[in-house]
């Protein structure tokens, strides 16, 4: 007769954690500094801040190190940390026209007021593995920076200080862009971190959920729409990357007061007008914004913003409820992995069912009337 060990769960967990740690340190390489992740893996940090929904580059870098590069885990850690922080106040809701731009392009026009500014983008690089990266040193970084600064004749400091006109305003002035629907519902500011989403969700709740959504999931749904399971067919009106000031109300003077700035990526896409609206045809738009430099997510968000406004959804990306329920990385990753937990009690119940079901002989429907007549 076998004896089943029912003790030892705690010890097993401790050993598993040690094993995880061992995987990280056994190679003998020198420990990564948090600053190195922040500098050299800065796009990973941006992604984790966006999905963790907390603008804290140092904490995001730490999470990436602790999670050994698992981005879903790292975002989860940041989000869990966020849940411990008290709410000190709210920033003022502001138009984003005064974004301090480092990159700004439009696909809708060849040239735009203020110009097409490529900024730091690898869009046009060749994806050839560069083996020289194996031999970099701190000295080679310093040398490169010195040369760059000398050649460009610049003093260090980023961005253009003047605000650039918005491309979408060009369309608005000509009356080509649909006006947003203004109702108490669309103007209401929700807080998805404090309340459960209800459907149909007000616009602010949908925007918040998308802004903190998981890049891959959002890309998947937006991509399905672009490929034809939906009809957004977007043109990028404007894509901006830069620094947005964060302002609160000064408690003493009552005036807006800048407390810092956050790096964001913002995308505005142009799509066909909503069918059934009266008057001459117009374009409609979709809006996306997220922490850090993450263009894939901002564009996906803008496409999804537009697609979930379809009144009669005919594809998953057009159903507001379908999209918002499935783009949170912390929830989807957690639930997916929870299936690794023991499920033997529920499975036993299923075994019982199927074993019983195999013994059942169904009564033929033709016999029902006969039986009734016999009983009558």
């Amino acid at each position, binding site marked *: 007769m076998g004896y089943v060990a029912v003790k030892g769960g705690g010890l097993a967990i401790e050993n598993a954690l040690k094993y995880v740690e061992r995987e990280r340190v056994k190679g003998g390489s020198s420990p990564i500094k948090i600053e190195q992740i922040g500098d050299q893996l800065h796009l990973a940090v941006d992604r984790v801040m966006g999905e963790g929904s907390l603008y804290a580059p140092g904490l995001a870098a730490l999470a990436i190190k602790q999670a050994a590069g698992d981005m879903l885990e790292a975002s989860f850690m940041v989000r869990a940390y966020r849940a411990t922080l008290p709410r000190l106040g709210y920033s003022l809701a502001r138009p984003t026209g005064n974004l301090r731009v480092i990159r700004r392009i439009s696909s809708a026009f060849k040239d735009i007021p203020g110009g097409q500014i490529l900024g730091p983008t690898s869009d046009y690089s060749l994806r050839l593995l560069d083996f020289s990266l194996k031999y970099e040193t701190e000295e080679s970084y310093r040398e490169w920076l010195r040369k760059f600064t000398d050649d460009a004749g610049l003093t260090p400091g980023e961005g253009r200080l003047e605000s650039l006109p918005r491309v979408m305003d060009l369309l608005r002035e000509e009356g080509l862009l649909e006006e947003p629907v203004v109702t108490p519902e669309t103007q209401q500011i929700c807080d998805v971190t404090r309340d459960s989403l209800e459907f149909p969700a007000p616009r602010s709740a949908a925007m918040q959920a998308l802004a903190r959504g998981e890049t891959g999931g959002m890309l998947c749904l937006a991509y399905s729409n672009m490929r034809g399971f939906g009809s957004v067919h977007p043109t990028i009106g404007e894509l901006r990357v830069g620094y947005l000031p964060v302002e609160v109300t000064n408690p003493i003077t009552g005036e807006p007061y800048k407390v810092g700035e956050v790096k964001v990526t913002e995308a505005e896409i142009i799509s066909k007008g909503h069918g059934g609206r*009266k008057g001459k045809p117009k374009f409609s738009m979709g809006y996306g914004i997220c922490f850090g430099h993450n263009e894939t997510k901002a564009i996906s968000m803008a496409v999804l913003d537009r697609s979930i406004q379809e009144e009669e959804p005919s594809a998953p990306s057009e159903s507001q409820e379908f999209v918002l329920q499935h783009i949170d990385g912390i929830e989807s990753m957690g639930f997916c992995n929870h299936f690794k937990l023991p499920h033997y009690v529920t499975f036993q119940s299923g075994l019982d069912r199927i074993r019983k079901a195999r013994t059942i002989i169904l009564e*033929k*429907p*033709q016999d*029902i*009337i006969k*039986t*009734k007549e016999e009983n009558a």
Partner: protein
Amino acid sequence: MKPIVQVRDLTRIFGDSCGRCLEHVDETTNICPVCGSVVACGGVSFDLYPDEVLGVVGESGSGKSTLVRLLHFDWEATGGAVYYNLQAAGSYGAVNALELSPFLKRQIRNTSLGIVYQNPQDGLRMNVTAGGNVAERLLTAGWRNVGNMRARSAMLLQRTEIPVSRMDEPPRNFSGGMQQRVQIAKALSNSPAVLLLDEVTTGLDLSVQARVLDLIRSLQRELHVSMIVVSHDLGVIRSLTSRTMVMKHGRIVEAGLTDQILEDPQHRYTQLLVSSQL
């Protein structure tokens, strides 16, 4: 004899109504010249009596299907009143049913009304067995004995000439005529006082049509259920109904005994209809 259904000024407008559309439309058009809204149903009034079959005839766009959808609470009315004087509907006879809560509307629907749509997709759940479709209203009415429900389903399916051996198949595998007959069985499952039939034979082969019409006629004689039969086909109207209303652009232009309307139409439009079909 008291009517079991009284309809007063029933109206349904699609679009952003200017509020005075009814004044601006008449039999010649149902598009309001002021605001562009469509008056699908404009101030319709009539009574339905027990054990009576009432016809509603008109061409497509006349509002006859809208009328039936409004009576079944499928769509919200823009105005008007409907009074259901039915024993099963309880004390709702004095109240405008259109103003009841969704819960109470559903109660009236589940206990007293049955509907058969032109397209079986609208009336049946295609991924549920034929027997399950018939049993659905019984379940919502609180039946809790599977044997009894299956017996009643089997009996109704047999009565509507569906082979009982196919009771546990989903209707998507059935022919068009068979699907219509499943709809009829379903509509009758809770012994409704009022049965609404919306273009039920349109689109079926002529021989199949004849069979369905025969079935409806015999069911009516047997169960004495009141019916409203909507059709553009005067032959259907003639074979089933005793009284008829003619609709055009959302309004009733003529009403009376079916025989009289068909033999001696008074209104110009009715004359046009009759002369073009028969």
